[in-house]
């Protein structure tokens, strides 16, 4: 009973990356190419909008960019305040880049490794984005609080929480990278499974349905990545005045945390 399934599983190709070794280093050339394509699409769209940018009635492309930038600015204003203006371009670049990169999944290609796989399905890109964000967060925290204040926050609110605080700081980049990678990678696997396990005359329909769902998941993940970036910067830029004072005594009726 399980033999046909195992036999089918043996034929499934999950080799998504075209690896090339150069100078002792391994490069996933199709991921790199897809990253360049995604970057070119984002920058091309941005340059198109920039050339036609007007303070009058905006065109559709400008309107789409303004909607995203405006939403990010309002979120930053709400969480961080005016000092968080520098986070807006980073959050916007992350959102746009991750979205376009993930939507490269829609481009049909032959068997894996495809020429243009979604680069967000490669841990190298998601880890690079996560490291960039976390390094930026820590740098911003040191600049805002000073080195002493930055180190002190690892021992707040109680000194013996230091291991947990340290673990939290290590978990942030890992969760950022793996969340995005896992969602896109799982989508890539599902596409392969649907294509391989369904008969050819049936497979297109579930493939279309799955790819539409994958588009929605990509949008969500881009949103989550950008939002978490903003929240991490908010925590990093919070000073002692912003932190809530420790509450003493039991909660009063109607009191909200």
């Amino acid at each position, binding site marked *: 009973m399980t033999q046909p399934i195992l036999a089918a599983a043996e034929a499934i190709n999950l080799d998504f990356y075209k690896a090339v070794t150069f100078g002792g280093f*391994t*490069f996933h050339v199709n991921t790199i190419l897809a990253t360049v394509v995604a970057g070119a699409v984002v920058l091309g769209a*941005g340059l198109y*909008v920039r050339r036609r940018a007007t303070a009058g009635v905006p065109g559709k492309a400008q309107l789409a960019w303004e909607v995203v930038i405006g939403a990010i600015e309002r979120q930053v204003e709400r969480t961080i305040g005016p000092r968080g203006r520098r986070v807006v371009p980073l959050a*916007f*670049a992350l959102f746009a880049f991750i979205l376009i990169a993930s939507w490269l999944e829609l481009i049909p290609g032959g068997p894996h490794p495809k020429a243009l796989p979604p680069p967000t399905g*490669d*841990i190298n890109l998601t880890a690079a984005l996560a490291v960039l964000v976390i390094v930026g967060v820590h740098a911003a925290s040191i600049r805002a609080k000073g080195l002493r204040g930055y180190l002190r926050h690892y021992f707040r609110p109680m000194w013996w929480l230091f291991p947990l605080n340290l673990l939290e700081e290590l978990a942030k980049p890992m969760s950022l990278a793996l969340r995005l990678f896992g969602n896109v990678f799982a989508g890539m696997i599902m596409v392969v499974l649907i294509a391989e396990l369904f008969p050819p005359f049936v497979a297109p329909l579930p493939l279309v349905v799955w790819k539409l769902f994958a588009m929605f998941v990509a949008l969500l993940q881009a949103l989550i990545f950008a939002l978490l970036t903003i929240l991490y910067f908010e925590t990093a830029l919070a000073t002692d005045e912003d932190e809530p004072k420790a509450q003493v005594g039991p909660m009063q009726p109607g009191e909200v945390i």
Partner: protein
Amino acid sequence: MLAATNNFLVPNATFLVELVAFLAVFGIVARFLAPPLRRAMERRQREIEAGLARGEEADRRLREAEIAYQESLARARREARVIRDDARAVGDHLREEGRRRGQEEHDRLVRRAEADIEASLARAREALRREAASLGAAPPALSVGRRPEPVGS
């Protein structure tokens, strides 16, 4: 077995290339793409706010003009009422004055007429008396000079 591949959870040299690639994208977005768009958004926001402020100013002026118009109308009505009352008073006074003068003139004419009649009667009596004296007869009974009947009786 599944197709063998490297451990896909371990980054390799691609990590550095991806990092540089995204830094380039971020740098261009932050330096050249986001600022012009933000300036356009801010300029539009300022124009919208200026337009709204102008609209509110126009509404305020309209309300003030409406109030000034109502006050002017009320003031004009009050003045018109005063002028009308003054005119009525003057008219009444003139009417009364005219009536009084007419009455005085009437009385004066009546008195004058009576005086004339009395003088005529006296002259007539004197003439008769002289005539009677010249004739040597007793003066007749003075039946002349009946006071005229008042006019309109």
